[in-house]
Structures are given as C-alpha cells and as structure tokens.
C-alpha cells in the first residue's frame, strides 16, 4: 500500500478525531451530569439517628484505624441536661484533617455504630491549611425532616438498644419542648 507522504500521515489521527464524539466533561458547569461511581470515597459524614441524636459515640476506633492519622476524637459524657447521642458517651471533638486523609475508608469499616460514612462530595480544595481540618459541625449530616438538633433527650421510654435496633424512627414532641433555642 502506497504510504502517504510523511508530513500528511502525521495528521491522520487529527483528521479522524474530528468526526468522533468528544468526551470532554464540562466540569464545573455541568458537574451534575457526571456523578462519581456509587462506591466513590468522598468527604466523610457523621450520621444521625432518625430523631437527630448523633450516632458517634466518641470511641476513637476510626482514629485508631486511620493509617494517615487524619482523625482526632475526644469522647465525653452525655448528661441528663445535655444529651448528644443515646447511651453514655458521645464525640465531643471530632476533626478530620483532609490534608492527611487518603480516602481509604478504613475508618468507615472501623466505626461500630455506622456513625461515619463517606459522601460523594469531592470538592475539597482550599488555599488555607487550617480550613482543611474539618470540625464536627462541618461533618455532621444535615437535619432531615423529623430530626431535632441535639442536645435533647432520647425518645421517652427508650434506651440506646432501641436506637441501635431501629425502633426509634422519628423525633417525638416530648423531645421537642426541651430543645434549647439556638
């Protein structure tokens, strides 16, 4: 087969490409069209029980599991006056340092209460190191309908076992009255 002159043959790929469908993703203009894979490891989230109490018990198992030493947790006692989670213990301080995190997900596997999961959020760039240490408030899941912001008591007549067994499904009015004005 007669070959094209060398200067032209170099343009064959260019010419062919002109008739192919482009694969450019219009990020960030059309980011919604390109969701990450279902099991993508994005920013962490600290989940809530259906009545809004926090699931984290401040056990530090996530921090222990973390190979990058990215998590810092301090536990504390729930009191009758100030309850953040069912049971005795909650996470008073919770920080994840996204300068260190390698999104391996080992912390998620370690969490005994499913408090910690990962979202699909990946836009975590910043120009300030301090702002890349996320605090508990930034990591907590949003309040869905039926949830009350802690601190507030458990649903009357239940204990933490009921929460873990899924027998609490929503906040009740008795919890509402005690919510302190924010």
């Amino acid at each position: 087969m007669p070959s094209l002159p060398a200067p032209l043959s170099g343009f064959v790929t260019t010419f062919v490409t002109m008739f192919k469908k482009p694969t450019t993703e219009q990020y960030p203009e059309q980011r919604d069209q390109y969701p990450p894979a279902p099991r993508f490891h994005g920013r962490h989230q600290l989940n809530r029980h259906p009545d809004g109490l926090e699931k984290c018990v401040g056990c530090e198992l996530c921090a222990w599991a973390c190979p990058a030493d990215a998590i810092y947790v301090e536990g504390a006692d729930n009191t009758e006056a100030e309850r953040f989670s069912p049971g005795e213990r909650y996470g008073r301080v919770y920080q994840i340092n996204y300068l260190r995190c390698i999104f391996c997900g080992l912390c998620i596997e370690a969490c005994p209460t499913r408090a910690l999961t990962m979202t699909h959020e990946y836009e975590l760039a910043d120009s300030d190191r301090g702002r890349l240490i996320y605090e508990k408030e930034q990591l907590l899941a949003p309040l869905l309908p039926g949830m009350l912001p802690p601190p507030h008591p458990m649903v009357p007549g239940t204990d933490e076992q009921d929460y873990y067994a899924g027998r609490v499904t929503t906040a009740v009015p008795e919890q509402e009255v005690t919510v302190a004005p924010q």
Partner: protein
Amino acid sequence: MTALASGPAGPSAGEPEALVTAVIDDVAVRVPVNTLIIRAAELLGTWIPRFCDHPLLDPVAACRQCLVQIDGMPKPQPACAIGLTDGMVVRTQATSAVAAEAQAGVMEFLLINHPLDCPVCDKGGECPLQNQAMSSGRPTSRFTEPKRTFPKPLALSSQVLLDRERCVSCARCTRFSDQIAGDPFIDLLERGSAQQVGIGDGVPFDSYFSGNTIQICPVGALTSTSYRFRSRPFDLVSTPTVCEHCAAGCALRTDLRRGQVMRRLAWEDPAVNEEWNCDKGRFAFTYISHERITEPLIRDREGVLQRASWSEAIAHAARLLAPALEHGRSAVLTGGRLTWEDACAYGRFARTVLGTDDVDFRNRPASAAEAEFLRSHVAAAPLGPTYDEICEAPLVMVVATDLEDECPILLLRLRAAVRRGSTQVAEISPVATGAQRKLSATRVNATAGQEGAVLAALNAFPAGTVIILGERAATVPGLFEAVGARIAAGARVAWLPRRAGERGALAAGLLPGLLPGGRPLLDPAARAEVGRAWGVDPSLLPTAPGRDAAGITEAAAAGELDALIVAGVDTRDAPDPHALRAALAGAGVLISLEQRHTEVTAQADVVLPVAAVTEKAGTFLDFEGRARPFPAADRQSGALTDARVLALLADEIGRPMGAQTVAAVRAEQVGLGRWQAGSATRSAPPPRAGRPAAVTGAQDAGRLRLATWHTLLDAGVLQRPEPGLAGTQRPAVVRLAAATATRLNLTAGSPCTVRTEHGAITLPLVITEMDEATVWLPTNSPGSAVRTALRAAHGDEVTVEAGHAPVVSS
C-alpha cells in the same frame, strides 16, 4: 531461678529453699517447691491466660481462665493456684489440646454475659479480656439470647465507677481491699450468674487506695470518674515519673495526651511502692494545668502586676535586689515541694548570690530542736532505714505521725510485713486510728504533746528497732532528746516528713547552718569543700548560721529584711499564717517563684513562673533518703525550672552560678557527695528552748491539748480542682474520748467548738477511743483550717465547748 517471686504460698524468707524438678510442656524446670505453675511457665516464656492471678495477692482461682493439664489429675487444674511438686508433669495450652479446649470453654462462659461495650469502655485497647478473647477464645459466638444487664455505671464512690456486667468476678478488687489496703468495703455479692461486686447500702468505698482496684481490674468494670471517656491507649505518651505529693516516693506512670495529663498509674518498684499508690498520687494532678502563671509579672507604680518579658523581669528583679545584696539582708523561704536540684539551686543562690544563710524549707510548725536533730542525724545520713529494713525490724515504733494520712505506702508495706509476721508495730499516739487497726499496732497512749515523755519512759527496745518520727514531732517538747537517747541505745530512726521535697531540701542544705550534703556551715573544711564545688572563694560564704523560718518571718515583719525570695509557699501552711502575711508585706522586696497565683504572688514585686513537676526533670529524695529521679513527662512546655530562673537572675546580678540545668546540678552535687567527717565537728547553735512549755497533764474541764495532722485528702492546693477526689475526703470532725465528752456534756454528732484566743472551729463531734486530755482536729480540711483559725499546732492548749460559738475575729 531462685529470683523467682514465689508468692504467699512460697517458703518464707530465711529458710533454705527446697528445689523441685518438674516438667512443663516437655521442658524440665528446677524451681523452689510450691512455685505456682503460672509463675514457672512465665519463666519458660509461656503465657497462660489469666484474670484473677496477681503476684501480690493470695491465689483464689476464681476465674478459671488459666486451666492446664496435669498428669495424674482427672480434670484441668488452675495454674495460678497449684504449686509445683517434685516430678509434676504439666501441659499448658501450648502442648495440650485439653488445656486449650478448657480455656476456650471458660472464655466462652465469660463472654456469654459480657456486654458489647468495647467502643465505650475505657479499658478498650489495653484490655486483657479483649486480648485473651482473641488468643484463647472462639472466633464466633454461639450465644444468641439477650445478655444480662445492670443499670450502669454504679458509683462506688465519687471517684470509682462500676459497670457490673463487665465484671469477670475475678475478686482482684475485693482481695486488694481486704488483703493489701485493709479496707474491705467492696465484696462479691450474690451467686451464679447474678454474682456482682458491690458495696453495702449507704457505705461508700471509703479508701485512700481505691484507685489501685481500677488499675488491677483486668476488665473495664472499674473505672475512674476522672479518666472516663478521656482517651485511648494509643493517644497517650507515657513517662515513668515519681509522685510529688508525699515522702513515700512512689513510682508512677504519667500519661499525657497533647501535653495534658490524662491519668496517672502506680508503676512498679519492688523496693518502694511495689505496684500500689494512693488516690492522692493517682488523681491529684489537675492542678498542673489549672490557672497557671505563664509569663513573668512585674508590679508597676500603681501596684498592679503587669506582664513582662523574661529579660525585663529578670533585669527588674536584679535591680530591686541591689540594696539587699549590698547589706546581705535577705532571706529565702521555700515550701517542702521543691525537687532536690531546685533546692540545691536555692541554697547556692542564697549563699553565693544573696550572701545570706537565712534559708528554711520548713513552712510549717518547726522548732530549733528539730533543726538540730535534722542537721545531726538526717542531713548527712546515708540511705536507710529502707522500706525493706523497716519491714524486717523486730519492732517499728511510730511516733508523731499517722501513717495512713501522712505516708500511705509505708502503711501498705508495713501491713504486708505484719501480715507475713516479719515485724510488729507500736504507736505512741493520743488517738486510736485506722492505721493502727490495719497494722494490728499496739497504741501507747500519750496526751498530745507528751509523746516525748512517754517515749523516754518506755522499756528498752529490742535491738534493731526502727522509730518512725513524723512531721509533728517538731512541736513536741523533749521528743528529740528522747529519740536521741534511743538512737544512742541502738535504735534507728526514719524521719518521715510529709512532703516529697523536704528530705531533698535538707540534703541540699536549705536550713540555716547547713550546707549541701549535711555539711555544717560552721566548719571551715566544709565551707572550703562547698566553695570549691561552687567555684567561689569560701571566704565569701556566710560564716554564721542564719535565721530559721520563724526568725525570718519575724525579721521581715519588723522590716529588717531588704529582700525575701519565696518559692512554693502556701501561707495557710505556716505555723501562724497571719504572721507570714505580715512578713510578706514587711519585706523590702518580695520575689515569688510560683506556678499559680497565691497570697505570695498577690504581694510580690516580681513573679517568675516556674515549671510544674511534669514539665521538668528532677529528683525527689523519699523519706528513706533514696534518690527518685524522674524525666520530664511534658518536654514541650518550655517552662523553666526554679534552678534555671535563679541562674538567670544570678547572671544578671553578676554573680553567675552556671547554667543550673538538672544535669549540671546533679554533676555538681555528685562531685560534692555527703559530709564524711565525724560528729565532733558538727557544731551548730545550741538548741534553744522549744516553744511549748512542758505539759502538765489534764487541766480544768474544757482545757485540752490539741492533736492535729493533715488528713491525706484535704483542702491542699495540689488537690484542686478534682471533684471526684474531693468527694472521697473524710469529713472534718472533732474527736474526743467518750469520758471527755461526757464531762463536757457533749454528745456524738452535736456541734463542738474548739477555740484559742485567736479564733474557733466548730465541727460535729465524733466519739473516738483516745486520750482523755486531748482533742483532735484535721489540720487543713474544709471547715477546719487549724493554723489560720486557731494559730495552734499539735500539742498546744485549746478550749473545747459545746455548740456553735460566735467566731472571734482575728
């Protein structure tokens, strides 16, 4: 293998130990007869799983986790309770499927009712049950029924919490309380699966040693309120340290998380505290990070303390000190809490920079007789009598101290010795105490202040007797003479100060007329040695003994001192706090080296912040004279030691004393050593007549002698803020004998007032077995500030009456 700790079942010391040959896992061992299988296996490197076994407690075989196979026995046997005999053939889980199966079975039983608490359990990460469930348990659970639960946690005291479902019924805590501490307030209750640890209704776990049960509990059933949920083992940076509270010198482990002390544990030192400590040493550490002074402060023209840089503050202090340096009219007062290195620096600063011998570490009732005794019998003494020697003495005579309140670890060591029968204890005391009960001690009654006369009147002691002489001996007339006579007759004396730094301050020469290593200031040879070590011309050192604390206080109040340097002094500890306050106000210049704001810093012209015990390396000398060096637990704080601050000041003044780092002071002092010359050269001022007049026995109705000492847990500054610990304080009460109470028409529980011309203290009365001419008060407990309110010391005369009294303003 003779170094083996054979435990209580082993042969007692002194007898030749019979050796036996046995076989464990096909390996022959030769060990003393009755060595426990579990100990012998440790020597071979085989770890038999265990919960209830503890080398310092009698075996009970309560948990059954240590089952092993023994040839000739039909069933597996507990290795922690069976001693080896000749020819015994033992197989552990390493070589026996039967043993391994038995252990796995026991573990399955233990876990049946064990909660899934690990994420919220303080023991998680350092839990023997977690570890042994992994090594000896089944991989999966066959138990699907609901678990037994209890309401939790149960507060045994304000400091100790119990989660009953985590308990494995090992009885370590109850055996410790019963066998070691002698406070059997907790016990195993109920039987079978309802078995639980508990306390009697309304009887709190009232023990100064309760923290040890938390430490030896092999699971997270016992936890402390102060450490609950605070951190995980991997957060902690651990450093072996030494307790800064009393003169027992306990080895501790200090655990820090991000520069904050999270907890302290008793650490192992067989020669001193074995594996125990007291609750004060364990829990009283929050003061370290509480309301600290972090920057130097200078008083401005308006009289307000202002923050300053170090160079500014040091320069200012040096300027203020100039007139004092010219006339040598200055003094140094230190409390009993300094490390030995810091005390050495104060001694050197006083003698070479200030040119004064007015130094004293005794911010408490003291006397010239005591100073003379310390100079001649303690300051230059070598190590001893040691704990071990005291525990082997034929008779231990306790005088003027309450061991439970003032040296709790000596109490535990002596109690163990009494239980083994190696010693017996007698105590000269006006009050029958818990310490005497725990030691099965004979109490020789003495009205407060008459202990000296009683000691002198006793029969000769057996050879090798050890006399333990406490802090309040200082105000007992004639006691040191009586002790001197006993020493001449062959007895040994252990001087038991109340604070960790007192023996070190004495060795450092923080007493008038005393140079480091017990050297007498009046001896030119001693001055020459010290001058050489300090690199100064000995002729520049003071040649005449200076004033003691009382003299310094008096002189300062009278305006005779140009400068006063005060370190770690709590005014409430002084024999007369009002007089000390007057002295602080009367001194020309007051320089305070302190960790937090006190009445001293409130008056000081310059305040120089110094390092707390976790932030520096140092050494305490315990009451034996044993050096207890420790490294800095917190190496990041940057706080300066007292010695470094004094060195900066000395440099600024132009009379440098070197860098005064811990290493430099140690090297300087080791080079100097103890004073070796005979006692003939030991010349000091003749003892002045002691302050209290001779006691003449029982007086008219309400006139009684005051017996008083600090209870272990009281209103001391280093115990704040720690509400859990404060909750275990023994309530402050007045104690009287039944006959005295009847005579004064007082009934138990009713308010009772103790008064002097300066003031009064009213507390509920407790009838106690005690001397009838004596009344007892705690020295510094909430509601009972004896020195502030009464300005009285042990042995002084007070008036006792019924009911509340209008407080006489002082």
